[in-house]
């Protein structure tokens, strides 16, 4: 069936740059975020490639040791604070979540736009730091070094501080939206699982980020005023900084992964054409992860000199995080079991997620084990684990989600063949890059080192080839996705034949989302009751 782009939609109902920069439409704000966040991803990716390039040889190729310290710090800071934390909530959460619950917008549209501007201000501070001395503390800003280095610590702390507010406001907005703006008749257990995940994420954003804010503020005051709180020479305690920092930053890794898990729930259900298995388990495991995430921060500090008892308890509690994550994985597998699975591009991303995230999760249990961690601490094993969770998990989910909702966002479809090639490139490239890093880690290759022993030459070279493959893959994705915006074939309202509410709108949707009040006609995963068509609100009942 041939589809056409509707005459009027949110992209053309208002025109001119002012209509974008002053927009209150959650969909346009999502796109504003997409531009900034994806540009940050590009920047962080360039730093990653430079690092891998340098690591091809233990000697100097591109940069000296000081530059190298700056490059890995900027890679980390950009990827964490500018890309991965805002990515899914701010882009897809903004665009899709209100549509999914049948709302006309988020609860506070002006606050939503303000969050974007705050993000841009934070971005500017980060770029300013980049050009005024850089930063060489790593993304963790550990004291006492962060208190002593002459690099641009204050601008980058300001950037992270400001970005934190953007994150808090987005979280606050989403919690209120999900509580108060659901379509009439939509109960909590009729919410799509992506919405549950966004909700759990928003709770962490709101509860953890203020602590990061005060921590960074204290560090700035320590540097500028010398208040003595983290300075051992003045009776302060540098380890206290680590406690404060990880009290935020461990929950923050769930800010990064939970929304990704939400996307995977949608993808698996849609492309298995099957009612999701264990809906309530998946929904509550998101809250379970959010809750346990607040109790485990000490597992980053096993060798910091915290008390042995604390270390044992933190190690034990860390294992508990594995339970809700495992529940999700098993429920997704059960959903696919005997489903009629179609292997469209988004599903390929979801399958990549399942494999890579499982490896990342299991190695997390390894690292959470106190005795093993003492051995593996600060080695490439940690680097690899983190990238398996964050890239193998979240980035796979982001791109799965982008490919899934791209036809909804722009009304047009991308080139499926190129898209499948890209998934394979990324999947292969990723494993080539990071799997050897597990091995290097167990053999004692320390992370953040500019040089290495000759025995690691082969594996570092192999890893760098993987990074290049990934680079090519992401470049390809950028090209065909942007091409699709202008030249793609019109997709129709429901190209994947999914049952969540965002597919009941034309692609692209109107500025106000729905005509009149949206009513609930079926649950988000009622594939055993109705078969959706790629047309507006057309279903065959089974």
């Amino acid at each position: 069936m041939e589809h056409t782009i509707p005459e009027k939609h949110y992209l053309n109902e208002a025109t001119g740059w002012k209509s974008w920069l002053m927009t209150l439409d959650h969909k346009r704000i999502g796109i504003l975020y997409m531009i900034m966040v994806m540009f940050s991803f590009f920047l962080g990716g360039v730093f990653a490639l430079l690092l891998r390039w340098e690591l091809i040889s233990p000697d100097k190729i591109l940069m000296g040791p000081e530059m190298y310290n700056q490059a890995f710090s900027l890679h980390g800071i950009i990827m964490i604070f500018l890309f991965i934390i805002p990515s899914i909530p701010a882009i897809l959460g903004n665009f899709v979540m209100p549509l999914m619950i049948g709302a006309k917008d988020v609860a506070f549209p002006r606050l939503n736009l303000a969050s974007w501007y705050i993000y841009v201000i934070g971005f500017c501070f980060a770029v300013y730091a980049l050009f005024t001395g850089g930063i060489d503390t790593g993304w963790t800003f550990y004291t006492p070094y962060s208190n002593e280095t002459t690099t641009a610590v204050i601008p980058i702390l300001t950037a992270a501080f400001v970005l934190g507010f953007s994150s808090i406001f987005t979280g606050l907005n989403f919690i209120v939206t999900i509580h108060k703006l659901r379509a009439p008749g939509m109960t909590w257990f009729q919410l799509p699982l992506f919405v549950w995940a966004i909700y759990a994420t928003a709770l962490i954003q709101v509860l953890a980020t203020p602590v990061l804010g005060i921590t960074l503020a204290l560090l700035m005051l320590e540097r500028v005023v010398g208040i003595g709180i983290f300075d051992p020479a003045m009776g302060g305690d540098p380890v206290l900084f680590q406690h404060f920092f990880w009290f935020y930053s461990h929950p923050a890794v769930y800010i990064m992964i939970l929304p990704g898990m939400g996307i995977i729930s949608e993808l698996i259900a849609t492309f298995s054409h099957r009612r999701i298995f264990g809906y309530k388990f998946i929904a509550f495991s998101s809250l379970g992860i959010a809750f346990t995430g607040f109790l485990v921060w000490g597992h980053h500090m096993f060798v910091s000199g915290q008390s042995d008892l604390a270390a044992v308890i933190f190690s034990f509690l860390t294992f508990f995080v594995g339970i809700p994550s495992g529940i999700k994985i098993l429920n997704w597998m059960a959903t696919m079991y005997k489903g009629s699975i179609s292997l469209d591009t988004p599903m390929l991303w979801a399958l990549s997620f399942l494999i890579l995230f499982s490896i990342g999760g299991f190695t997390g249990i390894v690292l959470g084990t106190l005795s093993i961690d003492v051995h593996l601490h600060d080695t490439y094993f940690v680097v690899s684990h983190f990238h398996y969770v964050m890239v193998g998990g979240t980035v796979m989910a982001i791109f799965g989600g982008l490919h899934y909702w791209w036809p909804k966002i722009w009304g047009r479809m991308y080139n499926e063949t190129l898209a499948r090639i890209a998934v394979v490139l990324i999947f292969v490239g990723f494993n080539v890059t990071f799997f050897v890093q597990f091995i290097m880690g167990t053999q004692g290759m320390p992370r953040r080192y500019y040089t290495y022993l000759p025995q690691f030459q082969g594996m570092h070279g192999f890893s760098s080839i993987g990074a290049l493959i990934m680079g090519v893959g992401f470049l390809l994705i950028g090209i065909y996705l942007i091409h699709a915006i202008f030249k793609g074939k019109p997709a129709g309202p429901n190209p994947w034949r999914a049952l969540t509410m965002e597919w009941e709108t034309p692609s692209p949707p109107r500025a106000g989302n729905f005509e009149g009040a949206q009513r609930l006609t079926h649950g988000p995963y009622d594939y055993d009751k109705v078969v959706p068509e790629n047309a507006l609100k057309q279903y065959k009942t089974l």
Partner: protein
Amino acid sequence: MNQTTAHPAHLQHHFTDAHQQAESAKLGLWIFLLTEVLLFGGLFCFYAIYRSWNPDMFHNAHAFLNVWMGATNTVVLIVSSLTMALAIRSMQLGRRKHTIVFLSGTVFLACVFMVIKYFEYSHKIHLGQLPGKWYFFEGIAGTNPHIFFSAYFLMTGLHGFHVLGGIAVITWLIIKTSRGSFSPEYYTPIEMTGLYWHLVDLIWIFLFPLFYLIG
């Protein structure tokens, strides 16, 4: 359907009715207050840790705070919370003039608080009872007394900024009220500012004994 009754001026288009809008605003504000509690929570942690490490020094240093000024400020803030509550009550009853009087009273008391704080601060600065490396006072026994003053200035300082923020917002409310923006049907901003103001008051009620009344 009559558009004007369905959508009064203060109702934004994406809400179905005024009730939904007011409920959303209130929930949003409660979450905001929660983030404030966590923000101060970090500092309370700071206080708890260093006091447990230096109990004697904290005890010796606290004697240099002026209990009477602190106590006066506590009373001032509690009364300002009362005037704030009365301002909301007056608007519920539609008495706009009373609302303006009570809001102005709240601003006045907040200013009194800040003036007293100013005298306390300038006295400390004069004596050199300052945070961290700026500390030059001699006469407090115990290790690292500057840490006590770091905590004192940080916590009362952050609280002071919240008082200043409150003054700004309540002044804006006075202007809006005198322009007739609020009515017994719509006074959400006053109510929400009231909640915020009570939290600011509450934080001071914790700060006062923690700094001025160390036993």
